[in-house]
């Protein structure tokens, strides 16, 4: 047990290499998707489709990377990232339209769209985007010009981390200091008061927040392709879009909270791999430890919140 926990630590935060190449590399998609989920939830949109939106972004970035580099040259990378972001927004847009036009709950539509996106990726890597030999279910690798640079030969960490962290700060600032951000918070907290007191276009605000969260998830997918995998694969994401929900909630839906929260989950994932590798812990037990740690963290946070509210109310709730 001790050796397993040591491996967990060593494989996540215990060395510079593990921290940058294991934890931070995983933290990038978690920050972006987690940030997207946080924004959506703050606006009262229960977008649990970050996974599908991430895949949509990965597809678009791959397509641009493979087919656009001849024409775009050095602009390939930025165009691929933008295309990924827009594709994520478009995939979220399906659910947004279903919500606004037909009153379909986004909780189910986004969940269904996750499954559809995964199957579509499976199709694309055996169809239109398959490598030229048509043998393997994957795309070719995108050319070097379309790749995000890494920080050096000794690490797999790429510039996506900078994009992610900057966006976290930008969104945090937007929510706190701009009218648009305040509108999102107000609409999420009490749509009818926002409407009655401010003439706020409620459904336009929620739709925009929805699309924006898809945009961030799509960007995460694009960064994963241009920074890590360099090609489109079937199992591109280990469920970043689902973990994103936990990341956002552990962050208290605060954009800045997403930074440490994403690090925690990325560290757990990275450390769990190390547990298998270095402590001989079977994969299944590694996820047991991971789940146990999440529950411990959640339990401690809940207990402290209870203690605080009990103190404030001078009695049990």
């Amino acid at each position, binding site marked *: 047990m001790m050796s397993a926990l040591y491996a967990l630590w060593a494989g996540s935060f215990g060395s510079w290499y593990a921290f940058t190449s294991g934890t931070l590399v995983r933290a990038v998609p978690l920050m972006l998707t987690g940030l997207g989920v946080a924004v959506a939830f703050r606006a009262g949109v229960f977008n649990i489709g970050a996974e599908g939106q991430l895949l949509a972004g990965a597809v678009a970035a791959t397509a641009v990377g493979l087919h656009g580099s001849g024409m775009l040259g050095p602009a390939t990378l930025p165009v691929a990232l933008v295309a990924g972001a827009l594709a994520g927004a478009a995939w979220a847009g399906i659910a947004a339209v279903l919500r606004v036009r037909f009153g379909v709950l986004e909780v189910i539509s986004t969940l269904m769209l996750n499954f559809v996106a995964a199957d579509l990726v499976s199709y694309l890597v055996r169809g239109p985007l398959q490598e030229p030999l*048509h043998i393997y279910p994957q795309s070719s*690798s995108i050319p070097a010009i379309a790749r995000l640079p890494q920080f050096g030969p000794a690490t797999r960490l790429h510039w996506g981390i900078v994009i992610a962290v900057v966006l976290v700060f930008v969104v945090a600032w937007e929510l706190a200091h701009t009218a648009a951000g305040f509108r999102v918070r107000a609409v999420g907290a009490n749509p009818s008061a926002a409407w009655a007191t401010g003439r706020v276009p409620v459904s336009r605000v929620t739709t925009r927040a929805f699309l924006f969260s898809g945009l961030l998830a799509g960007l995460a997918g694009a960064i994963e392709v241009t920074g890590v995998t360099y090609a489109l694969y079937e199992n591109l994401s280990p469920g970043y879009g689902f973990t994103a929900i936990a990341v956002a909630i552990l962050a208290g839906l605060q954009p800045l909270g997403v930074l440490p929260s994403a690090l925690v989950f990325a560290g757990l994932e990275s450390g769990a791999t190390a547990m*298998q*590798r270095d402590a001989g812990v079977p994969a299944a037990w590694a996820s047991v430890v991971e789940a146990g740690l999440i529950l411990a963290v959640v339990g401690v946070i809940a207990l402290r919140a209870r203690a605080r509210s009990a103190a404030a109310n001078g009695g049990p709730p």
Partner: protein
Amino acid sequence: SHGNSDSGRSSASDFKVALLTPGPVSDQSWNAGAYQGLLRIRDSLGAKISNIETKTPADFEESFRQYGAQHYSLVIGHGFEFQDAAKRVAPDYPKTVFVTTSGNTEGPNLAGLQFDFANPSFLAGMLAGGVTHSGVVGVIGGTELPPVRESFAAFARGAQFVNPKVRVLSSYIGNWDDVSAGREQALAQIAQNADVIFQNADAAGLGVIQAARQSKNVLVFGSNSNQNDVAPDVVIASVVINLPHAFLLVANEVKDSTFRGRVISLGMRDDVVQLVLNPKLASRIPAPLVTRIDSVRTAMLHGSFPGADSAASPAR
């Protein structure tokens, strides 16, 4: 104690071998066979072993690097999907040998282990074409991967070689662990009159076998591991890869420092991939069919049978 900066000593005495699988090693099929192979290396060569169940392409490269940095002697990525990562990592860790199964990439310290699924699958197809009463046989896969597709194509050709009128149904489950869905895919094929089904779906394939058990007069083929004993009443034969044998072969070379990077092709002649009949159902197979299969097998072993892998050219 990890990372590139680590400069631990590696000597022949700490012979370390790692295995990366794309799914759980309890699937009684593709991944289970590889795990048996890893255990065989441990038991026969006294190796220190480690294995990881990887989830994503991003994991592949990271894990390869970590093992390289820890001076593992041999790292096996079990599946074609590992080869891109292996190709990228191998040059950085010249003292570690990287092997990917179903791969065709090579380098000084990089080898692909190719298994000849076509010939034994062709034989399985012959058997299926000979025993079907309805003239309809099925293939059911987890997802469409190159070795699976190749093996299914050979199976279909084998069936049509024996019985040109045979119809082949093909379904994919979409994953490798949904046993119930595997069973349903099989039942849907059985409803279309399929009475012999070749499955290659790891754990989900057990559902196919279960469907056969619960239907009348349906036979199935096992794959990857010898699954004849999983349901002796309906599994007529298995297309078996003897992964322990194959892994040990490579591991021995690595341990003896006789390894050369190349694509290693293993098949029936090496006793690595075989069609293993279920003796308990031998009575169901007409004697002339057995004779015919045996003669084709002999021709294959002598390299004088061209038909089986005419699908080596890319499909579609």
